[in-house]
């Protein structure tokens, strides 16, 4: 067991592991997202209140889920990197940060577009949208901080500290923003928290969420591989790996 973990923790071991594993996640992501798209767009019934604009939920919610999860995973990776000095954790955190920022942006965008038919405006200072916007700024901060350092190790450690500070703050920000929102605009129509969705509506949503998570895992596995090659390019095994092709 420990030997296995140790092997995974080494860039070389992880590389081989990722090569074997990532195709499965790519296949899962393509099938689930493809199936979920068709089901959600064409087969799920329209909402009795919001009509077909409700279908935006099938891209908005998975993106929002992923946006939050990726930050938490990045913080965990940062913790592993800082405590056990496992470089691989930092490589993974580097690899997933842009995807997290992109997902946050898409969640914001689809939320704003959804806001036009439901609220009548592109932007409402809704609690969810506001905390999503702040999460986007946190992502930008982490990415900017990492790239501001010349030394890679310093940048990695600084980004890890900031991610961990951010992840402690995310629930505080979330609850304070929700509190602020209920104080200022009581009882407006909320788009995503609704009671008892029928099965034919939430099942495609579940499929899309699973598909997005598979996509995240597949991208992270593959991008971490790139990151390994970039950082370990002087290592013997990388030379051998590259040399095999010619």
């Amino acid at each position, binding site marked *: 067991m420990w030997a296995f973990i140790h092997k995974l923790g080494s860039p070389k071991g992880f590389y081989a592991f990722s090569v074997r594993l990532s195709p499965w996640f790519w296949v899962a992501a393509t099938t689930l997202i493809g199936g979920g798209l068709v089901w959600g767009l064409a087969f799920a019934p329209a909402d009795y209140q919001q009509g077909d604009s409700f279908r935006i939920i099938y891209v908005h919610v998975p993106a929002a889920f992923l946006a939050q999860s990726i930050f938490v995973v990045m913080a965990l990776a940062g913790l592993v990197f*800082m405590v056990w000095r496992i470089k691989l954790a930092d490589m993974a955190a580097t690899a997933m940060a842009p995807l997290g920022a992109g997902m946050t942006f898409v969640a914001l965008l689809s939320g704003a577009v959804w806001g036009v038919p439901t609220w009548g405006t592109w932007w409402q200072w809704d609690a969810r949208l506001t905390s999503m916007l702040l999460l986007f*700024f946190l992502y*930008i901060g982490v990415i*900017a*901080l990492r790239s*501001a350092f010349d030394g890679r190790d310093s940048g990695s450690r*600084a980004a890890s500290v900031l991610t961990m*500070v951010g992840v*402690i703050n995310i629930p505080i920000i979330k609850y*304070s923003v929700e509190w602020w929102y209920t104080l200022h605009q009581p009882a407006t129509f909320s788009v995503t928290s609704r009671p008892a969705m029928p099965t034919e509506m939430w099942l495609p949503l579940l499929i899309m969420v699973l598909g997005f998570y598979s996509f995240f895992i597949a991208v992270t596995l593959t991008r971490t591989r790139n990151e390994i090659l970039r950082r370990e390019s002087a290592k013997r095994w990388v030379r051998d790996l590259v040399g095999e092709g010619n």
Partner: protein
Amino acid sequence: MSCPEARSDVVGRGRKRERDTGIGIALYATMRRDLLLLLRRPSTALNPLAFFALVITLFPIGISPDPALLSAIAPGLLWVAALLAALLSLDGLFRNDVEDGTLEQLLLSSRPLPMLALAKVAVHWLSTGLPLALMAPVLGVMLSLPLGSYGVLALSLALGSATLSLIGAIGAALTAGLPRGGVLLSLLVLPLYVPVLIFGAGAVQAAIAGTGVAAHLALLGALLAVALVFAPWAIAASLRISLNG
């Protein structure tokens, strides 16, 4: 033969005494030094206050001199302006110490770095947070802030700015070694300031509305407690990173 033994005994005892009282003395020395530096160069403490007053002056000019409108937005304006003023002063918090090597000495000392960082943050709060809180009621008069909320304004700012100093010091420590850390610092720190702003401005608004202020102030206190527990460690870790980078 007994001479070296006795000497090592003396040295050992001396070291022990140093360790027993060390933290207190180190904290005192750090705070004293920073306060002295502040007295020698008072502009570091006065500039944020001038900035605060200036920003507050801009709003009536930019929006409208109508007292009714101003009094409605005054709590938020005062809080946002004070927050930005506190943010501006953060950039120099560790930068000078990094440049003149003081920070290296702090890192080398046997005292726990988180405590020393806490001492520096305390001085920062004394030199910016507290003056801003004391000055805010005066600017409140200029924005025709309703009566009965002045005490809450000062209190919420005093309480909230301590949290701002603690959180901001993390960002300041992370960017202390970077050549142009100022803009990056605000990018890192401002999202983390949001809860403090919400509860701080909320307290003043609650005071105006006549609803309970206690909940807001209690939450501000809770935020301060959480920041006091976590921030010193994060600051210390960030300072170590900045110095090695």
